[in-house]
């Protein structure tokens, strides 16, 4: 061991050469990588100390060297401890200057452990003060290395007791093993540098020696034969010239003797360090000459030269300096000018009024409730995602928190009141980290609050393990707190401006006063806080910009929000139509027409327009025109009635129709109006069924439109269907549902809230669907007991079903509550009038009271003829008892049926010679009904006069009567329309020979009609696709008064209990204008019923007029 000097001979020589010096001096120099140039495999290890190495085990060279440079060594040992911890080999070189070339170099170099080996587990080392200085391994030792160490230990043990007889290799191996673990364990000790330094200071000469020995041990770590040889040559260069072999043996013996076995390590070992005799490696006696000596000049010159040499060395030049002139080139210098513009600034102004503040605060809260929730979630995710990211970088949790702290710290410093030194106070550090982590704490409101807040905040945050949840909840609660600051922050978050950091900022701010500051710093925080969230915000802003961009193009309309624009257009269209039809609307609504209502030059135009459009009669002047300039409210019904007869001409009192407007548009042109139906709740909504276009094939799709008077020129809804629509009806229980019958026999239900074409229900695939066109469809309220009530009975009990009639001879009830279930109410069989059997009165055998007889009658009457079905064209449920209904058939018969019997008629009414197009119960008198037919007649029937012919027959024109309806307010008034374009209004009280109003439309076939129930108005549908609206004027008992009339359903509940007793006559409530009193209602109703009854009675007695 220690057979080689730590540094290689090459390095010795190299260092020895250039240092001829006069004065004795030692030049400790750092020479990196010069001494033992061996490759290092592992991290550099600190210098080892081998406390168990006895003094005697030192090699002679080392000892001598150490003695000579004791102080220096001990001093430099401290440094070497430090430096070698960093892996720098250290070389101490001493030299002197009179040609003595030999130098001794001591270096702790290459302290690397070649193989990390485990120390014996129980080895302990103590210093002279008894402290445990057992080296501890720093690096983890792999199992393989442990095994290698074990093997080394075994070989050492095997050579125990033999000093000289060991083979060189095994001994060397053993030493290197020991050396390895000792150095290893030295590395293990935590505070290597301090320990070594402290020991070095206290150690004195002993330190130096022990260090020297450890140094010499160190290099054997390399443990190869080549090293040995090298060391041997190095030693031979030394002054002492000792034989390397004994040294090795000695060291080996020492090592072997101090090889710690397990029991040895248990006990204390006293180590005595004794001083070895001084060995002079180099002696540089000072040379002193007297001033008078003759050699003094030479000495002085020599000294001078040496000083110069030193100076030249100090300046880094080489030893041999020569002055030489040379030409150098100056580096070319190029001047370049760069023009830099100052950062652009822009002044912006913002005007804030207090509703914009409201928008930002309260409005944002309302609108942000939905949006902010999702936003907060994203934000929270972004915020939490940063923490794992930082953790992934290997940063501990604390830096994350402090990063947030710094952000909030900057905010805090912006506030004058928050003079807290946040970053320096450890308490606050933890607090604000807690704040950033999970809680919303108003930390920075002011100093006091900051000191109060921390405790709770800290505890709260530390207690809360669910950061995310808390954060969400907090941000929500904050936006609800109503403080402007928090809300504006939340608003910004909603708008996607500073997303990532907004959560933190909001938490940090928490309703403090410096909200504006926090908002201003939000972008920065956003960048620092959550990169993901920030990116998201950028994306959203880009989206906004994209939406706003390119508005200069002509295509700009399509970039606008189409739905809202469409809505605005529709509103504007309605407004424009309101201007166009304003006067018509006033008349339609039955409002008093006042000249004062219109001002300026509009009124004359209106008058002329009105009279021009009044096609039938002269436009009657109302009383109000004469009192032009009067207050509009003064013009009421009373005034009209009182002043009218006095002032107006005779023409005022002629009943007439005034054309108001027509519902038509391009899509409905040339299509026949098949059916019309008011909405049961809002009579402004009119559904119209259009048949196929006349000019096209029958395969052209049907059309369905819902009109509103707000825009008579374009429907609110336009549904197309593949099959032509024949009939429709609005539900009264669910007013948005529209039942539609088609020509191909199927039934559909539309929800008019939908804009699209699809129906909500369809019987196209139902097994019970009609095989022929449906001609009438109606919603009927059916009570749960099975008895149907009329649709006008807005029954709170029972359900609403659809009843349809078709030419396939069936009356079908559709239950749409659960899917589509159909029940046949009646299958219509053809019956023949038994004029031959019955005398006079027709068919008394069918005696209306007996259902069975009535059912038997038809079949019996036809005798042996087979029962044939007939097509139903129309039906009507009784408004008083909807168990009973009428069916008009295409062979001209009208059957009264009950829903209880689906085979037999209660009674049958013969008379019409053509198909019956419509049957209508009188709304006032339950036993009277009306029918119209294509035999050009309208007939009035009395249920009680069953078997007889009709009570009255009305025929004015010579074409089919397509539709007939009772007027809503007068029991004796009805209207009808005909194929040749006549609109007739009949009043039985006035005349039963001629209609009171006859209005002819040229070149049109009128196909449908409908009275408005709220206003004195009449609608007719024609074959050109327009629905014309007329105002009915001057019909006694009907068109008097102004304003809206009461609908039957409005007053039904008030009237019904009082009319329960007289169920025969007045169970059906009436409509009466301007009357709310129930008693008056009944009176009015009874009057109406009595009027009609009287008339019927007289008519049956054969009188007329």
């Amino acid at each position, binding site marked *: 061991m220690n057979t080689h000097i730590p540094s290689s001979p090459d390095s010795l020589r190299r260092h020895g050469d250039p240092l001829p010096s006069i004065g004795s001096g030692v030049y400790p120099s750092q020479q990196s990588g010069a001494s033992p140039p061996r490759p290092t495999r592992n991290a550099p290890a600190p210098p080892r100390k081998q406390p168990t190495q006895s003094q005697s085990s030192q090699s002679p060279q080392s000892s001598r060297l150490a003695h000579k440079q004791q102080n220096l060594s001990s001093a430099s040992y401290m440094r070497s401890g430090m430096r070698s911890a960093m892996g720098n080999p250290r070389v101490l070189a001493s030299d002197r200057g009179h040609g003595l070339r030999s130098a001794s170099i001591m270096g702790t170099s290459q302290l690397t452990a070649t193989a990390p080996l485990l120390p014996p587990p129980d080895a302990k080392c103590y210093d002279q003060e008894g402290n445990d200085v057992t080296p501890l391994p720093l690096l983890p030792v792999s199992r393989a290395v442990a095994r290698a160490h074990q093997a080394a230990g075994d070989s050492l043990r095997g050579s125990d007791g033999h000093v000289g007889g060991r083979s060189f290799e095994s001994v060397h191996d053993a030493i290197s093993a020991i050396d390895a673990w000792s150095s290893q364990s030295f590395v293990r000790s935590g505070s290597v540098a301090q320990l070594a330094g402290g020991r070095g200071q206290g150690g004195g000469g002993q330190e130096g020696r022990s260090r020297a020995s450890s140094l010499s041990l160190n290099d054997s770590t390399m443990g190869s034969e080549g090293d040995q040889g090298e060391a041997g040559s190095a030693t031979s260069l030394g002054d002492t010239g000792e034989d390397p072999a004994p040294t090795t043996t000695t060291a080996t013996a020492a090592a072997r003797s101090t090889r710690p076995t397990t029991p040895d390590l248990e006990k204390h070992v006293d180590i005595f360090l004794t001083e070895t005799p001084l060995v002079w490696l180099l002696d540089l006696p000072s040379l002193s000459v007297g001033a008078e000596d003759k050699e003094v000049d030479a000495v002085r010159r020599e000294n001078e030269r040496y000083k110069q040499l030193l100076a030249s060395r100090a300046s880094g030049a080489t030893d041999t300096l020569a002055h030489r002139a040379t030409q150098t080139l100056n580096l070319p210098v190029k001047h370049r000018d760069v023009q830099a513009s100052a950062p652009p600034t822009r002044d912006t102004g913002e005007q804030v009024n207090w509703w914009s503040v409201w928008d930002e605060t309260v409005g944002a809260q309302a609108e942000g409730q939905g949006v902010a929730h999702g936003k907060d979630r994203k934000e929270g995710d972004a915020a939490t995602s940063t923490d794992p990211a930082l953790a992934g970088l290997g940063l501990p949790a604390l830096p994350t928190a402090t990063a947030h702290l710094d952000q909030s710290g900057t905010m805090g410093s912006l506030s004058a009141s928050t003079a807290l030194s946040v970053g320096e106070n450890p308490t606050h550090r933890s607090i604000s980290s807690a704040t950033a982590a999970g809680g919303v704490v108003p930390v920075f409101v002011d100093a006091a609050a900051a000191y109060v807040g921390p405790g709770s905040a800290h505890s709260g945050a530390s207690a809360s393990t669910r950061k995310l949840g808390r954060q969400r909840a907090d941000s929500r609660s904050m936006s609800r707190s109503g403080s402007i600051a928090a809300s504006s922050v939340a608003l910004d978050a909603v708008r996607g401006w500073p997303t990532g950091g907004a959560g933190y900022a909001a938490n940090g701010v928490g309703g403090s006063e410096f909200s504006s500051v926090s908002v201003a710093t939000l972008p920065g925080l956003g960048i620092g806080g959550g990169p993901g969230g920030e990116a998201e915000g950028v994306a959203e802003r880009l989206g906004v910009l994209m939406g706003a961009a390119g508005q200069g193009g002509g295509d700009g309309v399509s970039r*606008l929000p189409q739905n809202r624009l469409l809505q605005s257009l529709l509103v504007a*269209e309605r*407004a*424009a139509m309101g201007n166009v039809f304003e006067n018509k609307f006033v008349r339609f609504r039955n409002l008093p027409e006042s000249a004062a209502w219109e001002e300026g030059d509009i009124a004359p135009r209106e008058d*002329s327009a009105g009279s021009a459009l009044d096609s039938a009669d002269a436009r009657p002047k109302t009383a109000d025109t004469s009192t032009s300039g009067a207050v509009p409210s003064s013009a009421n019904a009373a005034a009209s009635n009182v002043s009218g007869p006095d002032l107006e001409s005779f023409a005022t009192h002629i009943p007439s129709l005034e054309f108001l407007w027509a519902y038509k548009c391009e899509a409905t042109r040339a299509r026949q109006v098949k059916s019309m139906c008011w909405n049961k709740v809002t009579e402004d909504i009119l559904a119209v069924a259009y048949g196929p276009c006349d000019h096209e094939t029958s395969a052209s799709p049907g059309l369905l439109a819902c009109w509103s008077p707000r825009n008579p020129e374009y429907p609110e809804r336009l549904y197309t269907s593949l099959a032509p629509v024949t009939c429709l009806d609005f539900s009264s229980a669910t007013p948005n549902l529209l039942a539609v019958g088609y020509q191909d026999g199927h039934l559909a239900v539309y929800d008019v809230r939908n804009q699209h074409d699809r129906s909500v229900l369809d019987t196209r695939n139902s097994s019970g669907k009609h095989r022929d066109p449906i001609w009438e469809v109606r919603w009927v309220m059916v009570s749960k007991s099975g008895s149907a009530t009329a649709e006008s009975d807005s029954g709170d009990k029972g359900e609403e079903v659809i009843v349809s009639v078709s030419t396939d001879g069936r009356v079908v009830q559709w239950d749409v509550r659960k899917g589509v279930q159909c029940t046949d109410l009646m299958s219509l069989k053809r019956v023949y009038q038994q004029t031959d059997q019955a005398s006079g009165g027709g068919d008394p055998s069918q005696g209306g009271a007996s259902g069975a007889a009535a059912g038997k009658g038809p079949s019996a009457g036809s005798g042996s003829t087979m029962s044939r079905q007939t097509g139903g064209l129309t039906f009507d449920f009784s408004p008083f008892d909807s168990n009973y209904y009428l069916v008009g058939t295409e062979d001209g018969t009208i059957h009264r049926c009950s829903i209880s019997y689906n085979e037999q008629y209660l009674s049958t009414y013969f008379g019409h010679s053509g198909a019956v197009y419509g049957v209508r119960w009188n709304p006032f008198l339950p036993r009277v009904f009306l029918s119209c037919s294509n035999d050009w007649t309208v007939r009035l029937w009395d249920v009680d006069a069953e078997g007889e012919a009709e009570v009255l027959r009305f025929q004015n024109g010579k074409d089919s009567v397509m539709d007939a309806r009772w007027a809503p307010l007068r029991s004796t008034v009805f209207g009808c329309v005909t194929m040749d374009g006549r609109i007739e209004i009949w009043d039985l009280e006035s005349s039963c020979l001629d209609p009171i109003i006859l209005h002819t439309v040229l070149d049109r076939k009128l196909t449908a009609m409908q009275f408005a129930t709220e206003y004195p108005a009449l609608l007719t549908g024609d074959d050109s696709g327009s629905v014309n609206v007329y105002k009915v004027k001057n019909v006694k008992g009907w068109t008097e008064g102004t304003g809206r009339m009461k609908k039957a359903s409005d007053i039904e509940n008030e009237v019904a209990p009082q009319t329960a007793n007289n169920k025969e006559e007045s169970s059906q409530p009436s409509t009466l204008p301007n009357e709310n009193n129930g008693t008056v209602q009944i009176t009015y109703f009874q009057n109406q019923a009595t009027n009609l009854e009287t008339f019927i009675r007289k008519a049956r007695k054969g009188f007329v007029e």
Partner: protein
Amino acid sequence: MSEVEETIKRLSSHKGVEGIVIVNSEGIPIRSTIDNNLTIQYSALITQLAAKAKSVVRDLDPQNDLTFLRLRTKKHEIMVAPDKEYILIVIQNPHEASS
């Protein structure tokens, strides 16, 4: 043709309707059926008016908002439907409409 275009066309064909101008949020007319100078005048002036009207309505009650503005003049009725992103202006001559 889109539904909006169809409605614009229909609206402009109604009786008395003299023009339709659609102005975007920056006051730039993006669609007009009247001549250029008038369009610019209408868009500039009506935009200000609508903003002021909205401000009035909002000042009176911040929860309220302007939805429609009708200006009845001697010659015209100007209907303004303001929105966040556009303003729809319809100019109608009511005398022509009702005659």
